[in-house]
């Protein structure tokens, strides 16, 4: 059995293939938050943004609005197209005529992408802290892992079923968020609230990120819910990779 060894050697290629996707959040942050911060720094001065006061509050507000947005977008883009593209463009014919276990190949790719994403996301508070003012770093790293796991595993699950997984992902995510918001506000009948509760826990992940960034305590049960749900989706995605034929559009 030689199936384990080729994948270890392929780690560098998986990293090379996913590094640009992983770097999307810092690039997005520079694009979305960098311009207002730069123009604000020109008028108020960088020093003012690092001292308690109006400039400091405004800088933190820009950071607080932009960072979660870039994290969410980056998490969606991270796993989009990974398996589905190999299937649609028939790359699998070259990859999996070699002694490689397909589901293990995609699991490794997912883990590498997740770690690179978390590392790239961590650059945002580190960079912001170095240039503007100090912000929590570990909270961002933890949130990035959680978001990459939840969003990435749902995208992976959609991608193992259909080719246009982005469309399915948006439909599932939008439905989940709307129903969960309505359920939280008590606007849903009991049965529909149960359905909303069974959908991917986007609101819980959002709430966890907010609490972490605010430095407040979080419920371990909520973390378990998001991590468990995501792991189950990822496992289902990998099982489908194993069970469903690769030669399909």
């Amino acid at each position, binding site marked *: *059995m*030689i*199936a384990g*060894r*080729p994948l270890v*050697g*392929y780690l560098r*290629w998986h990293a090379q293939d996913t590094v640009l996707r992983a770097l999307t959040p810092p690039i997005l942050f520079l694009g979305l938050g960098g311009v207002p911060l730069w123009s604000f720094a020109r008028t108020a001065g960088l020093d003012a943004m690092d001292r308690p006061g109006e400039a400091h509050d405004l800088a933190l507000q820009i950071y607080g609005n932009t960072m979660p947005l870039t994290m969410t977008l980056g998490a969606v883009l991270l796993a989009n197209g990974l398996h589905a593209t190999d299937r649609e*463009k*028939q*790359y*699998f*014919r*070259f*990859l*999996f*005529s*070699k*002694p*490689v*276990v*397909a589901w293990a190949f995609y699991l490794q790719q997912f883990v590498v992408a997740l770690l690179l994403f978390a590392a790239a996301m961590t650059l945002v508070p580190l960079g912001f802290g170095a240039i503007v003012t100090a912000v929590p770093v570990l909270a961002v790293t933890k949130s990035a892992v959680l978001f990459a796991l939840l969003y990435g595993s749902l995208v992976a699950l959609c991608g193992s079923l259909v080719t246009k997984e982005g469309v399915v992902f948006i439909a599932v995510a939008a439905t989940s968020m709307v129903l969960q918001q309505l359920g939280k506000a008590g606007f849903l009948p009991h049965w529909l609230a149960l359905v909303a509760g069974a959908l991917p826990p986007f609101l819980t992940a959002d709430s966890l990120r907010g609490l972490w960034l605010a430095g407040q305590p979080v419920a371990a049960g909520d973390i378990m819910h998001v991590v468990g749900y995501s792991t189950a989706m990822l496992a289902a995605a990998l099982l489908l990779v194993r069970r469903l*034929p*690769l*030669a*399909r559009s």
Partner: protein
Amino acid sequence: MVGIAGPNGAGKSTLISMLLGFLPPDRGTVRLDGLDPRTFIEREGVAYLPELMTIPLQWTVEGALDRLATLSAIAPAERLGARERVIDTVGIGEHRSKRLKALSKGNLQRLGLAQALLAERRVVVFDEPTHGLDPLWTARFREIVAGLRRADRAILIASHNLDELERLCDRVAIVDKGRIQRVVDVREAAGASGVPRRWRLRALVGCDALAAQFTDATVNGDTVECEADVAGLNRGIAMAIAQGALISSVNPAESSLEEAFRTAVAR
């Protein structure tokens, strides 16, 4: 070495996809050395050249071979040597640092062959292997494939090119409408002497005398086309020569495989 021949849409590529575990069969089972195809491939891999070169076009020639050598479970210390060997074998050294999108169809096909040759495999599967190759490289491909013959190796070649299959293979399965219609033993068919077949003969002198030896013979200039078994052909030629004919060539009007193919897929 087994060939698979068949008209377009006959099921050749589907058969190969099933053999490699990329598609499940509707009925029955597929086994490679007693194992489910995916299990077999996950254990030892196969040398596979698909019909279309579906490799990401942003990869470079060397990068693609490095990646696929890694996935082929070639030891790190041997990867460079394996890469250089196959680059040399298929003659794509001058393109080594090019991106695949810059390669011609023929060079892409040679890269496909190169990646299939990276590691020693017991099962070799080539789907339309000379698709896009020029005549020189088609001939070189035949040499390379002939060099792959080994007692413990199964080589399967799917092709539209019957001449190629006849030159390379021991047996050819003719597939049509998703079924194997006939398996032709190429060596046996080529040597079968008792079966009447069409022949094309050229006579520099005495063309009419030659045609007169055979029933249903047609004459076109200095060429006579007739039907006979090997013994009847020789008798007719001997009689014509005795009457003063000067014969310059004798060839089958069509190969035995072409004949078998035509009858097997007759609609």
